[in-house]
């Protein structure tokens, strides 16, 4: 990976981000609904105060002017004030990020841990009964509406068995005295040597993470199976087998390592779609993440927040793709980008 190539890649970000900004802005501008009227609802207000509030929020200016102000400020990482929170949008978004990222990563890990063994098994026993079972089993996850599955899990584990909590990231009681080094609770609790708090955070994240990660299992399992089959037909594997190495040894020592490259790249790319798709799980489990906030913000026409958040998602998406490319080249030198 040469430096020019890297710069070229970063440069490709620009048209994507600009395009995303234009589309979001136009969409919000064409969407009916006045943030000030929504905010006031049925409380007392005079037309003068409505005008006043529109001025304070910058809504009195024409749309094209607002767009250029937004662009100019966005370049300097200033995304304006959130209408409702009355604080800088960047702050409001950053506060929600650790929860969203932690949930996404744990969900992806759960998916990988389930998908890889299933994929390997399916490939090794290709077209056998276990292969079919693994395929159908992994497909179960993509075949359910996530919120329904989440609520069913919640009923079973939180209400009937009363084993796991319903909502939130951690109980306040056990979280006291923990220094937030990273704001990722599973890491912070361990860094603080607080196993009780770690267990508590784990108990909170497990159901939402399973709900979010389950659909990913099918995709990753399929990728693992395919690439595993491909690798197993490669010359060096056949050669190793011919040399008399045991089949298991060949599979785990040689084939698996190479077969996992596509799985990991796909996982990296799909992490982006998990990150942008967790609003439903966040709602069901009262998880304080970004997705829920963005959806709420669309409904109440909190333009600055929606614009900034969508830009954030786009940056993450491009970065993850970039990362997956690098991963692919570094791990598999035969591929030239």
């Amino acid at each position, binding site marked *: 990976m040469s430096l020019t190539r890297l710069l070229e890649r970063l440069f490709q970000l620009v048209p994507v981000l600009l395009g995303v900004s234009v589309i979001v802005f136009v969409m919000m501008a064409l969407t009916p609904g006045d943030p000030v009227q929504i*905010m006031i609802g*049925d*409380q007392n207000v005079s037309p003068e105060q409505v005008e*006043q509030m529109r001025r304070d929020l910058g809504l009195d200016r024409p749309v094209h002017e607002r767009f250029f102000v937004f662009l100019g400020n966005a370049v300097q990482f200033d995304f304006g004030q959130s209408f409702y929170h009355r604080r800088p949008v960047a702050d409001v978004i950053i506060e929600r990020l650790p*929860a969203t990222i932690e949930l996404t990563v744990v969900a992806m890990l759960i998916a990988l841990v389930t998908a890889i063994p299933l994929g390997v098994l399916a490939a090794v026993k290709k077209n056998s009964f276990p292969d079919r079972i693994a395929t159908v089993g992994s497909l179960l996850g993509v075949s359910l509406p996530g919120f329904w599955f989440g609520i069913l899990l919640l009923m079973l584990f*939180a209400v009937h068995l009363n084993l796991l909590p319903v*909502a*939130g990231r951690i109980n306040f009681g056990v979280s006291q005295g923990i220094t937030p080094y990273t704001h990722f609770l599973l890491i912070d609790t361990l860094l603080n040597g607080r196993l009780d708090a770690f267990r508590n955070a784990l108990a909170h994240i497990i159901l939402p993470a399973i709900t979010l990660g389950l659909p990913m299992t099918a995709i990753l399992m399929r990728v693992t199976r395919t690439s595993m089959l491909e690798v197993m037909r490669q010359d060096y594997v056949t050669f190793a087998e011919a040399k008399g190495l045991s089949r298991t040894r060949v599979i785990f020592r040689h084939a698996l390592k190479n077969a996992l490259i596509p799985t990991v790249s796909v996982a990296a790319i799909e992490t982006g779609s998990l990150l942008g798709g967790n609003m439903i799980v966040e709602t069901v489990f009262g*998880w*304080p993440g970004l997705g829920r906030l963005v959806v709420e913000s669309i409904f109440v026409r909190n333009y600055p927040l929606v614009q900034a958040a969508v830009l954030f998602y786009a940056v993450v998406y491009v970065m993850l793709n970039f990362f997956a490319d690098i991963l692919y080249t570094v791990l598999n030198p035969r591929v030239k980008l």
Partner: protein
Amino acid sequence: MIRIHRILLASAVALGTGGPAVQAQELIVGFSRDADTLDPANHRNRETETIIRNLYDGILTRDSEMNIHPEIAESYTQVSPTVYEFKIRQGIRFHDGSEMTVEDVKFSLDRITVEGAMEGQTSPRRDLMGPVASVEIVGEDTIRVNLSEPWPLLPAMLPNQQVVSKAHVEAVGSDGMATQPMGTGPFRLIDWRRGDSVIMERFDDYYGGADGIPPVEAACVERVIFQVIPESASRVAALLSGDVHIINELPPHSINQVANNPGTEVMTVNGTRSFFIAMNNESEIFSDLRVRQAVAHAIDRDLIIDRILGGNAARIEGILSPDAFGKNQDLPVYEYDPERARALLAEAGYPDGIDVTIDTDGPQRDTAEAIAALLTNAGIRTQVVIGEGAMLTPKWRTEGAPKSGDMYLSSWGNGSLDPYDIFVPTHRSHDRGNSAGYANPELDALLDAAGIEVDRERRAEMYREAEAIVNADLPYVYLWVPQDIYGVSSRLSGWSPSPDSRINLHDACLD
């Protein structure tokens, strides 16, 4: 008493097990929504106010029966139709230990009412304070609120505003106020985990709150947590599993389950939100009174209240809640009578019925569908259109501009239970919430006069007359005022729900 008992018990447990620190008494509220901000002057949101109200106290407050009590004020008097005087209690402390003075009280009110008082911006709550012209300090413990015109609502509206620390606001600015509260309330903020929870602990130097609402002492529980759980089924699940002790917005269909579950109970209180169907009075069909009457007679409100709202709603024949000031208790009733509805339609020139739509938002889907089925049954063939709330506002709250729909199932809140807040916006010509497009100069004049009438009985009589007018003109079909339903743990005592939907936890205890 309860507290002493509990402390003894707790210490006994702690000694007995020799374990770690005693688990703090922790009351958790499963709440539908996070606060937007913790700055009492910079929002327009009821849930935000509910949370803030436990950190900040007001000059006045309400008890759960909606009676008004002095809180930070010791007493108040109306000096003249446009001047109110408040004697401020001495010795109240902010959470940082500093003493609260009349300066702070004046500063708090100015911050809300003076244009540009918040670093150039104006508080979005300004209009909740009506015609407040100025606030002056007239002694060491007295302030005076001057109005630009008579406004009998001032005491009813003051509980919605809270007192902040002047020194603190000047130190942290408006941006800082959003996350760093400094009030005189029964609880102080420990942590606000955005989107997740607002965590507060008991403020031990609390002055005790309103004299009229005993017990007057520091809060009962040591810690209070508002845990955000937006999904209603999850909120109920959290209550049933014992994770939380109070939940708001318990859906009517979950009442039986919560009531039958050992360890949880249902609490209800008369709400203040009136539901109605706005009919587009400017449209050809609904400009005819007989058609509007047909709609009213076609809806079996008792059936819907009984089957869908679980019996937890009061039928209304005018816009006001049965508990509101000036409610007319003798309004004629539009009985359910589909035959009558058909006859009225035929009389209006629609013997074959009419085809119309009814707009509403997601939460009203069930009732809208039930209403549509009843209307269709009486020849008013109705199609339900569910719209996003933000989209219905520009369509139906047009401030006088023509409306483009037929009917709109909607509601208007009336937290103060004073008719002014609900009657004027929904019925005065061209006002914000006048979705029916109703225009009646006679009613406008009556409402204007009632708004500034200082004689209570005369004012009540004016609203009774106004209700009789709209009951006859029928710009809306008035439906019901639902109760607010809460689920609570049986361990909870000292708390009851309040019609203004606030959850004040000062006196709440857990056994």
